[in-house]
């Protein structure tokens, strides 16, 4: 199985010897793990399996011991996790936090941090918000939106930065049926346009989407089920 995993095309991320513990409790113990460019992955596992921890480690929000780490072919010191890497790996929280300002300003925040010119920010924000079909909410107060709307805006806010990798932590958690369907449709669009996406999820709704490769996190190790190998 490990041989098949390594035989995947160009790795966007490759990690070797990833260890993460909380006190005496070991949560992640991964020998080797990679994500291929342009693929969509669904990371499944039981509650407390460490899905969110792995996502947060990959996003550089949680410290961990890593022997080797490479991104887009370049070997990096994981402990240093530079700002430019954060701008290429976008993490979307399970319950996304939207800043206390308008939807448009929320989407523009990352662009502003990257030093994008104001006129370009405006153009990109308009483009992204229309892509998500939420142009009517551009001037709405972000914190007054529903859970589903917040999830979509968080995805748009990450998308506008054109990252190389999207990390989505339980994007369907606590959403009603309609919001779930809308979020799934957005994820489907994202996956069909050759973005690299890793989605931590519980249910089969995402892992059953066409082209999505299923990964399983068991006992702190990422497993690659046989069914996914066939579909990948």
């Amino acid at each position, binding site marked *: 199985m490990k041989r098949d995993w390594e035989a995947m095309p160009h790795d966007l991320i490759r990690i070797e010897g990833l260890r993460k513990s909380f006190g005496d409790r070991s949560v992640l113990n991964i020998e080797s793990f990679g994500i291929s460019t342009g693929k969509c992955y669904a990371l499944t596992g039981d509650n407390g399996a460490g899905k969110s921890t792995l996502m947060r480690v990959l996003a550089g929000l949680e410290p961990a011991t890593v022997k080797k780490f490479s991104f887009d072919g370049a070997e990096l010191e994981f402990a240093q996790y530079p700002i430019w890497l954060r701008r290429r790996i976008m993490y979307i929280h399970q319950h996304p*936090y939207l800043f*206390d300002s308008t939807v448009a300003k929320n989407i523009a925040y990352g662009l502003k941090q*990257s030093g994008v010119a104001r006129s370009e920010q405006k153009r990109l924000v308009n483009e992204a918000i229309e892509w998500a079909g939420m142009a009517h909410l551009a001037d709405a*107060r972000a*914190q007054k939106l529903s859970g589903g709307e917040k999830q979509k805006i968080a995805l748009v806010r990450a998308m506008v*930065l054109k990252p190389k990798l999207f990390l989505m932590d339980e994007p369907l958690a606590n959403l009603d049926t309609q919001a779930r369907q809308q979020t799934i449709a957005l994820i489907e669009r994202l996956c069909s346009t050759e973005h690299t996406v890793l989605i931590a999820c519980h249910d089969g709704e995402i892992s059953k989407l066409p082209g999505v490769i299923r990964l399983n996190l068991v006992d702190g190790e990422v497993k690659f089920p046989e069914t996914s190998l066939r579909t990948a």
Partner: protein
Amino acid sequence: MDLIEPSSQALQLLFTGDPDLWRIIFLSFWISFVALVLAAPFAIAFGFILATKKFRGRRALVIFSQAMMSFPTVVIGLILYVLLSRHGPLGYFGLLFTPTAMVIGQSIICFPVLVAYTLSAVQGADPRAWETAIALGASPFSASIRTLLEVRFAVMAGIFTGFGRVISEVGCSLMVGGNVQGMTRNIPTAIALQTSMGAFAQGIALGLVLVTLALVVNFSLAILQGKGGLREA
């Protein structure tokens, strides 16, 4: 004592633009404003660090900052007086009985108020705010500014409270300012002096300004807090 006569004289002084009276009012505002502007960036940054960083002695600093909020202003004035007096360690600068000395004193007085309000505000902030900013590529400094913006209503409450404390304090201003006419005489020290001299009209006029100011500050605070409370609705 008849209050009607001095009160009507006080209003007359205020509305006829008595230069001595308005100089005192302007000086009070200016000194308190400068003290607040000088103290705020350091106090807010210090409050933010206390709320977000773990380090040895943090707890002691939190307790000390909170205790300083109720520290008598006259004692702060006394300590500053010793430091700034001609034979004191800072006497060389010749700052005693100058507006600068009053600004230093008032900065010290409002500092712990701003620290305590910022500390409480940031501790109550959603931790996802900082994390989201970082995840969107912000530097730690930019993410900290974003977090402060998220709790701006509570931080502004601290600024208003700090201003209210320094504009009305008399002990420190009297000690290090010396109540010099036209130079260091502010509203509270002038009220104390005029009243002791029996010049009730000017004392009442200045008192009216101070009371109006206190009301404006409190109403502004109430409006801000009301707005802040509504933002999650």
